[in-house]
């Protein structure tokens, strides 16, 4: 007999055909804290028979012989309940990443986890939603094994650097692909998305999991599904948070006024202070940090509504977020709206998701070494100078207009008079149409189309009063850029069971096209007091200084794919997935635009075997294995790998200059991933987990093959050469430590070890500044000369030679390998406690065994810069023969005591342990019991307090060790230390 087994609950609800009715089962489905779950599917004998209402109640008819029903709802673990004859009270627990009964979504299709051979991690939308980050990716940190998420900036709205299973490309892109409701959205561009709209976030890690995105999935895929409507009466929810953020502890200690004056006198009194002046300045101790930074307030509000009938459902939301940064004037304001609608009419299904977001970011320069950057000014400005002259109240400018005495621009002027804003409008719209053929059960056709449109307008204003801006009376740059991408996927799918055989497959065609344009201007002459276009003076030949600069550009690229996915299952024990695809990308040389990719995966549900039936230990055990290839088209060569001329001008005439050498044979960078995984749950499901072993090898690496610039003016040609490997192990565990009536304690942990190794390079040992590309070493390996202290006799810095002897003569030939800035060990541990309505959770994340070059420190150690403030340790610098210290003499010339002593930066003096432990999140919440609410008309209510980054443990000398890249350049905007109070109410 044919059985209709569908796993997509939403779809299933409405395909059930009528059958013999014999008895009625009633009950209520709730969360463990009593919140009703609406829209949960009730199935009997493998067929859906109904769903819960808004109050969580259900009443379904089942055949008399039925002994149990299964309750499923996305986001919760499935539950099988034995019928008792009376009304049932069913509690569902929140799904965790390792639940084998869970459904996984790899795009717009979904499959039961048990049957899926791919490596996948599911991040609870609740976790992502509750953390008030302007860019949702920051909330993914520590949530899943194999996924490294690092905030490079605490600037509100700044995105995180996300890497799935390491860096696979040397010169190409390493950013994962982001998919929202089946279409690609621009990566690292999330400040206008509201994570409160997310229902699921899935991280796809291996070739089988990313099969649908094979042409772009080499760096992993992050799949976001937004919230869908649920049948039943209208439900309204209001979520709000209010809180504040503060500056983290600064571990790079600068001199105070007294120390700086002492140091200046020691260095020859460059400003010629008299004794009286020096004594008076010693007492100033002005805090530039306090003058430019603040406690930032955050508040956010969201209203959402969900409802509908069995055939037409909707979800809608509005949100507002206002987050102030810890640097004054900075912050993010975000407004979003969304509506998702799903309809079913006979054999047709269609739906549409619309989201519009508007965000306004007020920023300040970061990650640079510019004198005018306020975040550098807080370190560099002398503590005996002030932001404002107390006598006049105006900005202090003793060094000329805009400048402090030291020649350092007054950071307060740069921060308060200038502005640096960007406005983003982002629209993501998707729609689908699905037809279920009436003549053959299980056969359907579907087409899914969507657009991602982003418009960014960025504005930077330099006030005419600020340092360096007087010459042209200020400057205003405004740039507008839009990016439009459409993604269309059309497929024919067939899904059917024949006895013990399960088939599920489809053939697909997909097209992705991206277009972008930008233009902008920089205008001058702000003489009338206005700081926008109204203040601009358009230059002319008579006033060439104010001639504005204009510019613009654009690009486009596309992908076209054909692929088939075939899943086969036998006896609910053995599953096979086969994927084959052919992809074309406009980004490659005409000779190599198309490439084939494929993968195969198998799953063995060991615990379903007869011999495991009586196993006391295992409640579940399954083994998975997969191998496959995926492609990367994020080239370093840009969109067009053909030889091109770029625009150029000279003496007012337009011309052409060689722009790119091109390479007509440029081809796909390919990842070959092997994955082996075990999923288990033991001790009556009290301990469950997964172990994954993977081997991800990148072939045909995008590599700019260096050439002698003499023959063409180009220093390199975009090429494919070499290979790189990421190998690792991922462990995810979840255990119920205690499970009592009112009290429970759960610990979830994930740990990743990723070993990154370069296997093959066209030229071995390519040194690039402080790093080296070397076969057998990891990417981003630092390569520095070991610093060996100070020669007590003459104060010269000493270095260790390759033969371990000490020398005063620096040579780059003494550089040695120093470890990598990409943490090979990372993970997160979350402990959750709940007692009656109270819940408490704490998440501790860690990134271990990484080093980083501290250029922020170099900026305040270089003795040349002593006209500005310096690192406090410089007070210990060598002064007299016999001094034992680690800080060499500040002078560089040869002396009677020793040879010259030029300041060297590429040494281990600036290499620091970048490992850190971080209390990422602590949440204490209370859910008001339904009983108390029943008379108020409120369906559910919860209040909570949470904190981000309350504690950080590190040896790194700076504001924040959480940074990617080999070097902390300077002007760091550290990750925020946040505390918020939140409220969720449902009506």
């Amino acid at each position, binding site marked *: 007999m044919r059985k209709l087994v569908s796993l997509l609950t939403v779809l299933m609800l409405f395909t059930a055909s009528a059958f013999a009715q014999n008895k009625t089962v009633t009950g209520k489905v709730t969360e463990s804290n009593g919140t009703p779950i609406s829209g949960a599917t009730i199935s009997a004998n493998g067929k859906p028979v109904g769903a819960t209402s808004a109050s969580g109640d259900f009443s379904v008819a089942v055949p008399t012989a039925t002994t149990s029903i299964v309750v499923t709802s996305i986001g919760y673990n499935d539950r099988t309940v034995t019928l008792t004859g009376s009304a049932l009270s069913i509690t569902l627990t929140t799904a965790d990443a390792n639940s084998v009964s869970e459904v996984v979504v790899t795009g717009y299709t979904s499959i039961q986890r048990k049957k899926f051979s791919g490596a996948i991690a599911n991040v609870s939308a609740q976790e992502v939603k509750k953390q008030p980050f302007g860019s949702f990716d920051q909330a993914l940190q520590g949530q899943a094994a194999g996924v490294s998420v690092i905030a490079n900036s605490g600037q509100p709205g700044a995105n995180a650097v996300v890497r799935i299973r390491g860096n696979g490309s040397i010169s190409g892109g390493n950013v994962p692909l982001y998919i929202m409701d089946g279409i690609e959205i621009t990566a690292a561009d999330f400040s206008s998305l509201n994570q409160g709209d997310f229902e699921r976030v899935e991280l796809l890690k291996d070739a089988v999991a990313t099969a649908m995105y094979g042409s772009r999935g080499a760096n992993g895929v992050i799949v976001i599904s937004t919230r869908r409507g649920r049948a039943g009466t209208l439900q309204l929810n209001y979520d709000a948070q209010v809180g504040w953020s503060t500056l983290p502890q600064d571990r790079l200690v600068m001199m105070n006024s007294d120390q700086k004056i002492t140091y200046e006198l020691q260095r020859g009194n460059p400003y010629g202070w008299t004794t009286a002046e020096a004594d008076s300045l010693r007492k100033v101790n002005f805090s530039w940090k306090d003058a430019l930074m603040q406690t930032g307030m955050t508040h956010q509000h969201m209203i959402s509504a969900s409802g509908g009938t069995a055939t037409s459902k909707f979800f809608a939301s509005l949100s507002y977020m206002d987050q102030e940064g810890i640097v004054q004037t900075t912050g993010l304001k975000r407004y979003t709206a969304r509506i998702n609608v799903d309809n079913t009419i006979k054999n047709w299904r269609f739906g549409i998701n619309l989201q519009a977001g508007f965000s306004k970011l007020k920023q300040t320069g970061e990650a640079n070494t510019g004198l005018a950057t306020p975040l550098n000014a807080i370190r560099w400005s002398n503590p005996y100078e002030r932001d404002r002259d107390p006598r006049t109240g105006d900005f202090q400018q003793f*060094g000329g207009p805009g400048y*402090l005495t030291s020649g350092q621009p007054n950071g307060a002027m740069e921060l308060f008079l200038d502005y640096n804003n960007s406005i983003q409008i982002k629209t993501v719209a998707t729609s689908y149409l699905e037809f279920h053929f009436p003549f053959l059960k299980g056969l359907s056709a579907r087409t899914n189309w969507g657009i991602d449109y982003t418009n960014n307008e960025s504005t930077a204003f330099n006030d005419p009063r600020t*340092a360096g801006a007087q010459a042209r009376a200020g400057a205003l740059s405004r740039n507008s850029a839009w990016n439009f991408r459409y993604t269309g996927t059309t497929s024919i799918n067939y899904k059917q069971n024949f006895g013990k055989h399960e088939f599920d497959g489809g053939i697909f065609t997909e097209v992705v096209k991206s277009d972008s344009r930008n233009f902008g201007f920089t205008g001058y002459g702000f003489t009338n007091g206005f700081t926008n276009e109204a203040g601009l003076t358009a230059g002319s030949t008579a006033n060439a200084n104010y001639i504005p600069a204009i510019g613009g550009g*654009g690009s486009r690229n596309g992908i076209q794919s054909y692929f088939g996915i075939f899943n086969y299952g036998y006896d609910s024990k053995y599953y096979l997935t086969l994927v084959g695809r052919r992809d074309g990308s*406009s980004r490659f040389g005409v000779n190599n635009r198309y490439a084939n990719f494929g993968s195969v995966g198998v799953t063995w549900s060991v615990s379903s075997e007869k011999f495991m039936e009586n196993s006391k230990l295992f409640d579940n055990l399954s083994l998975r294995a997969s191998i496959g290839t995926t492609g990367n088209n994020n080239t370093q060569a840009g969109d067009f790998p053909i030889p*091109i001329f770029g625009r150029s001008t000279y003496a007012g005439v337009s*011309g052409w*200059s060689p722009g790119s050498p091109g390479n007509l044979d440029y081809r796909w960078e390919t990842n070959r991933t092997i994955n082996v995984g075990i999923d288990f749950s033991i001790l009556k499901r009290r301990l469950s987990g997964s172990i994954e072993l993977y081997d991800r090898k990148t072939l045909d690496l995008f590599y700019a093959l260096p050439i002698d610039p003499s*023959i063409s003016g180009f220093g390199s040609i975009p090429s494919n050469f070499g290979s790189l490997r990421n190998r690792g192990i991922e462990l995810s565990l979840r255990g119920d430590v205690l499970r009592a009536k009112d009290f429970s304690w759960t610990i979830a942990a994930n740990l990743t070890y990723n070993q990154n190794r370069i296997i093959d390079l066209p030229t071995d040992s390519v040194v690039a500044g402080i790093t080296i590309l070397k076969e057998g070493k990891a990417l981003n390996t630092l390569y520095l000369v070991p610093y060996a202290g100070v020669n007590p006799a003459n104060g010269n810095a000493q270095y260790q030679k390759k033969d371990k002897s000490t020398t005063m003569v620096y040579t780059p030939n003494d550089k040695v390998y120093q470890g990598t800035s990409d943490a090979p060990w990372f993970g997160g541990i979350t402990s959750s406690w709940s007692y009656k309505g109270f819940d408490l959770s704490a998440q501790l994340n860690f990134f271990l065994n990484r080093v980083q070059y501290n250029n922020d420190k170099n900026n305040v150690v270089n003795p040349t810069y002593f006209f500005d403030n310096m690192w406090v340790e410089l007070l210990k610098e060598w002064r007299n023969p016999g001094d034992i210290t680690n800080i060499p003499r500040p002078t560089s010339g040869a002396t009677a005591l020793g040879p010259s002593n030029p300041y060297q930066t590429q040494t281990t003096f600036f290499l620091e342990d970048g490992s850190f432990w971080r209390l990422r999140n602590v949440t204490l919440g209370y859910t008001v019991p339904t009983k108390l609410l029943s008379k108020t008309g409120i369906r559910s209510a919860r209040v909570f307090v949470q904190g981000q980054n309350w504690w950080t443990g590190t040896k790194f000398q700076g504001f924040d060790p959480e940074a990617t890249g080999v070097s902390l350049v300077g002007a760091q905007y550290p990750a925020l230390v946040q505390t918020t109070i939140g409220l969720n109410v449902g009506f």
Partner: protein
Amino acid sequence: MYNKIIKNTIVAFAAFTLVQGCSKKEVIELTPEFSLDALSNPSSMKQVEEVLTGAYGSLRAADYFGSGSGTGSGWALMPDVMSDNLYEVSAETLANSRAMADWIFNSSTGQITSLYSAPYNTIAHANIILRDVDKFTNANNQGQSNRIKGQAYALRAMAHFDLFRFFAVKYDRSSTADLAMPYIKDFTVSTSVKPVRNNNKDYYDNIFADLNQAVTLLGNVDQAVNPASGLTRPFLDRNAVYALLARVNLYAGNWADAATAATNALNGRPLATTQSAFTGMYKQTDRGEIIWNVQFEAGQSGPSFIAFFATSNRSYFRPAPEVATAAGTTGLIQSNDLRYQAYFTNVPAAGNPTPNLAITKYRGKGTLVDGNANFVALRSGEMYLIRAEANARLGGANEVTALADLNALRAARITGYTPVVLTGTALINAIADERRREMFGEGHRFFDLKRTTRIIQRGSICGTPTSSAGNCTLAATAREWALPIPESVLGANKNLVQNPGY
């Protein structure tokens, strides 16, 4: 019946797939809209000329005649930074060119790589022009063709010569043992072409061949290379090519040829004799005695940010007191010299009112102080000095001509100048001193010392806390007289031989 429906469905799906397949043109076969395809272009004489414009534009690169904050300025101010003309100011420098200024560079120093690449980029432009120009030449546009080709040859020769000035160990004209650089005459994009360094003799032969071609071609053109009047001379005309010939012959020690070429270059380009005409060359208010200038339009930066950050009045490097002082009463250039006013201004350091000279030659056009100024690369003053030096070295009767040129130049520069009478070494030394005065901040000092005394002894300020220099002397035997071939280039081209000592 079901079979039929299935068939129809599959056909329909296939058709739909095909429709998407047809959009291959729309999605995959994309071409750039904001740049010019170099596979099929340049495709007209007009486009060839546009590549010539690009070639001139490439001279503005931060490491050729352009500059960045404390960096770049390779053939503009870098040779002054690397010599005794300028000193690095402790209280103001950001130490961005410390490796160059202190001669502690090595083959992995980033600035060295940039200095290697920048002229070759100009050469690449010239080679594209020379590859394609003949394709579009016909009887009607021979003059235009000559004008384009002549400039391309001149640019190719000049860029090669500039490389030679930094990277060659010795300047000997006829040496077949000393290595110059690869002389490149074809534009090639390839990973397999790995040129070798020509020896000095071959290299000079090629430079002279190109320059002589340029002289011939630019003698028969459709229109003047530079406009007849104006405030600038942004393109290399025949006078400029003669000026280049004079300069190359001076380095090569071809004294008679150098003098002849200088005379030809000076034809119609008399010395500027007034303050406004002289200063005007740098301020774009007067053509003065410009033979050729590198043009920097508004917003295109300028040549001197390596030493003087005009918009902030910050001096990373200042003139050595041996050259000039704020008082204007000591040093080579004093206040009675019109060069004093054109080159220097009292711009003290922030917060320090003590008068202090900054090099403000390139402070801005007209009265502007934005650092956007043209770089005067060839002018009559240099030609006088080349002719003077060449004649002085020829000796004998030529010394009279040499002395006349020296006195003429000084008379044009110095108020109330009394002509002097010098001969022999004294004359040569006086010309060298005058050369240091005249060409201050114009990219000659390091090369002049390299080709003459081969020793740098920085002045009195070196070694004091005012200057951050770590080294005050560069000995004749030092390897640093020749820059190393960059490590990255050696890695890509095993045929290149590194300079001795690196």
